[in-house]
């Protein structure tokens, strides 16, 4: 519902007195709109909900779709959200995960998330409180001005700043806090996991952006933030790359790829806010969040049909033997998440690399290249494992049409986004 409203709101206003050309113009621009991924992800989640064993009428079973719509709406409109949204989002996701008492993995994910993120929120709130105490104001813009006067000891504001950033890093799922991402993808229901992950990551990014707003007024704090975020991004890229190469379970691999998406945001923040840059991050965040939601939807759905650790020469999985083109649609989403050239995700990776190059961050750029290479290599191997070797025996197991539709929605949506970006670039 939220997403549908968002689509309508995002349609461009035309000067034409006739409604038909305006509508046509809007439809043509729809693939490029940031709301499109939110709508498609919600619809894909609806398809996956239909897979659940139904004990109630269909309209009641589809009720959880409202929760997904809220999460997708959060991703779509996160650039306007404030610091208060982070704990609310965490609570919302934990509540969704804890809702189903019959599914132990679901509840376990909820407990782990509460355990980790609850502590992170507590630490970050302590940091916020300390900063307020030190500066005498809770308005972030004013805090930097007060600190620039030099009245507050460095240990006080640097400690407060470091702690206040922590929950943002944790919510982004950047390594070493990447375990929860993989846990959610492995343990939570397929219809809830991608939206919950994307919402948490986007809100984590907005937490960091909000916390660092106007930091350019106090360069010393910008420098500290740059060091912290740079170290976090470097660790995230290095650990993510090392983890990807050795991981076996496809769900967890997708989780690590999602955590690398969090690392991308950290790298951008380290390169811009760490140098007191006033670069507007709203458009980047919108683009990143929409892509993340749609790519995660496809990749997470696909991961449930992928082989674990297939030996060379093992036959392919049912999805790729029965419905290879649906598998390819899902692979497009996975490839986009990993930044394989030609996908919309690759444009994001290149954009971040360009920002790092411009900011003179060679170490971070090297680590980004390493992580990208590891991701690219891993997903290409996954493609080969999924198709497997030719086998005369018919494949066992069926792939429900709902899952295939979800794969087509995410893969097709990403292809549309890529086409729209290409058309826009040509214009």
């Amino acid at each position, binding site marked *: 519902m939220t997403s549908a409203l968002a689509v309508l709101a995002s349609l461009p206003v035309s000067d034409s007195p006739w409604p038909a050309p305006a509508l046509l113009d809007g439809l043509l621009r729809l693939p490029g709109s940031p709301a499109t991924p939110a709508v498609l992800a919600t619809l894909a989640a609806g398809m996956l909900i239909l897979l659940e064993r139904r004990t109630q009428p269909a309209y009641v079973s589809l009720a959880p779709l409202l929760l997904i719509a809220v999460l997708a709406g959060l991703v779509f409109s996160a650039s306007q959200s404030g610091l208060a949204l982070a704990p609310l989002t965490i609570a919302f996701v934990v509540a969704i995960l804890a809702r189903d008492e019959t599914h132990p993995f679901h509840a376990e994910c909820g407990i*782990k998330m509460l*355990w*980790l993120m609850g*502590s992170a929120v507590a*630490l970050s709130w302590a940091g916020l409180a300390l900063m307020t105490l030190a500066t005498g104001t809770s308005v972030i813009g004013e805090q930097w001005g007060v600190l620039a006067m030099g009245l507050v000891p*460095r*240990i006080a504001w*640097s*400690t407060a*700043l*470091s*702690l206040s*950033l*922590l929950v943002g890093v*944790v919510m982004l799922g950047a*390594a*070493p*806090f*990447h*375990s*929860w991402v*993989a*846990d959610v993808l492995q343990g939570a229901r397929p219809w809830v996991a991608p939206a919950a992950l994307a919402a948490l990551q986007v809100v984590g990014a907005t937490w960091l952006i909000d916390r660092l707003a106007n930091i350019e007024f106090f360069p010393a704090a910008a*420098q*500290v933030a740059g*060091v*912290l975020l740079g*170290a976090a991004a470097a660790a995230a890229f*290095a*650990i993510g790359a*090392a*983890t990807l190469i*050795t991981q076996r379970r496809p769900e*967890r691999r997708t989780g*690590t790829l999602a955590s690398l998406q969090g690392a991308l945001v950290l790298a951008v923040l380290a390169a811009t806010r760490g140098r007191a840059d006033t670069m507007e991050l709203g458009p980047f965040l919108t683009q990143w969040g929409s892509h993340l939601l749609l790519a995660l939807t496809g990749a997470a759905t696909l991961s449930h049909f992928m082989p674990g650790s297939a*030996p*060379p*020469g*093992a036959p392919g999985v049912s999805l790729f033997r029965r419905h*290879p*083109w649906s598998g390819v649609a899902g692979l497009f989403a996975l490839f986009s998440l990993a930044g394989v*050239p030609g996908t919309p995700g690759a444009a994001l990776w*290149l954009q971040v*690399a*360009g920002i790092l*190059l411009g900011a*003179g961050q*060679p170490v971070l750029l090297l680590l980004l*290249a390493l992580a*990208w*290479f590891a991701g*690219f*290599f891993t997903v*290409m*191997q996954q493609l*080969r494992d999924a*198709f*497997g*070797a*030719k086998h005369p025996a018919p494949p066992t197991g069926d792939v429900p049409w709902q899952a295939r539709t979800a794969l087509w929605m995410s893969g097709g949506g990403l292809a549309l986004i890529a086409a729209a970006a290409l058309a826009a670039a040509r214009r």
Partner: protein
Amino acid sequence: VSGERRVKLPAWPRLDARVAGALLCTAGVLAFAGPSLLSGAIGLELIATAFWCWARASEDPARQVARWNWLRRPAGALWLAVAIHAVAPALTHAAGTGPPSFDLWRAIDAAAVAWAGLELVAALPLARPFSDLPGPLVVSRPWLPVLIPSAGFVVLWQYSAHWTGTPEVRAVTAFLLLVTAVLAGLRAFARRGWIVILRWLVVSDCALAGLLVAVGAVPRPVSLLLWVGACGSHAFLLAAELRGSMPRRGMVLSVLWRLTGWISVAALSWPMLLALGSLQAPLRYLAFGAAAVPVLLVSWITVGRLIEAEERRAVVRRDTGVTLSHLMPLLLLGGGPALITGALWTILAPRPLAALLSLIPALLGGGLGILALSRPGEAATAEVPRRSRPARALARAAFRSVVASERRLVAALRRAGFGLTAPLRDLHSGDAQEYLLLLVGVGVLAIVLPLLR
């Protein structure tokens, strides 16, 4: 169930693996014609995919898929170079141009392109002995691996501007190609089967041609033509060997092909040896000597191992006149190397003694090859003469010991890498208590880290 009608939906189009692989491979080879790195990366990716297509459809996919999986590595290296240029479009290949930060990326770009080419030419210790093994597609199994070193040379030649501008990468690449040429020559000398020998000769040709590009002795089109002459003659011999050994049928064809191979190798090696001998470096004599070894071996094998095929037919087939086996030597000899060698004389203007010395390895190899041929009166046989067995055993032992040492080194490095990154991977255990400990630890680090500055 009676009365139930099953509607059969039209199936998606599915290509036969052989056809799909052939199409991909052809498209990959054609993509190399494009001068951009992107087309090269796509080309390598398509070739790697073609090998995978054939391998997964072979009768022993477990072995074939694992055997040819490494082909994705060179493609990945080229993709990295593509990404570097996409991020920094202003990056040029001349050292010292652009901002200082570009030097690092220029070096990485050069290393990535050189890596792609070197690994395909079997110049890296990761997949060196692939030419010992037949390819994954049954119909052209013994011939297919020839495609790989050829693709490697094309990468090194087509994108030479990327790696020859960085002196360190250029020096390392030249050294690795030199080692590869020697090892491939030794391996070709050690093997018995003519088909395997030809595969290794192609590797040696490609490595020598790559070395020619690295030393930059001749213009790029000339180096390509010289490579086409040397590698083309061996590749044609191999292709023809699988279709009735036509180039070895009869004395005329045998002599013609010995001459073709010999002259082509001499034409390829001569400017390269000349350039190595005139380097202003302390190790130039060593480099010259090392490069002379594969030239000698390749010439020797090309002349001495091409044995006239025995006629087994009771009724000899009527002569069909001029065949492709007659025309190809004329094309390879008349069109390229002979003219180029003459032209080079004027371009390089070498001293007569240096020019003669640079020809000696090829001449000596060819002469030894002629000596190794069956004497008049002896029956021509495909068996290697008994007198060359100790030399072959020595060559085999040298190759195996080098490859075994390389494998041990690579395995040790891999183990060390896994050991060093083990703590990073262990962070992914997923234990809830560990999460909290880690969070507290990172929280403390976040407080301490700013204070340290």
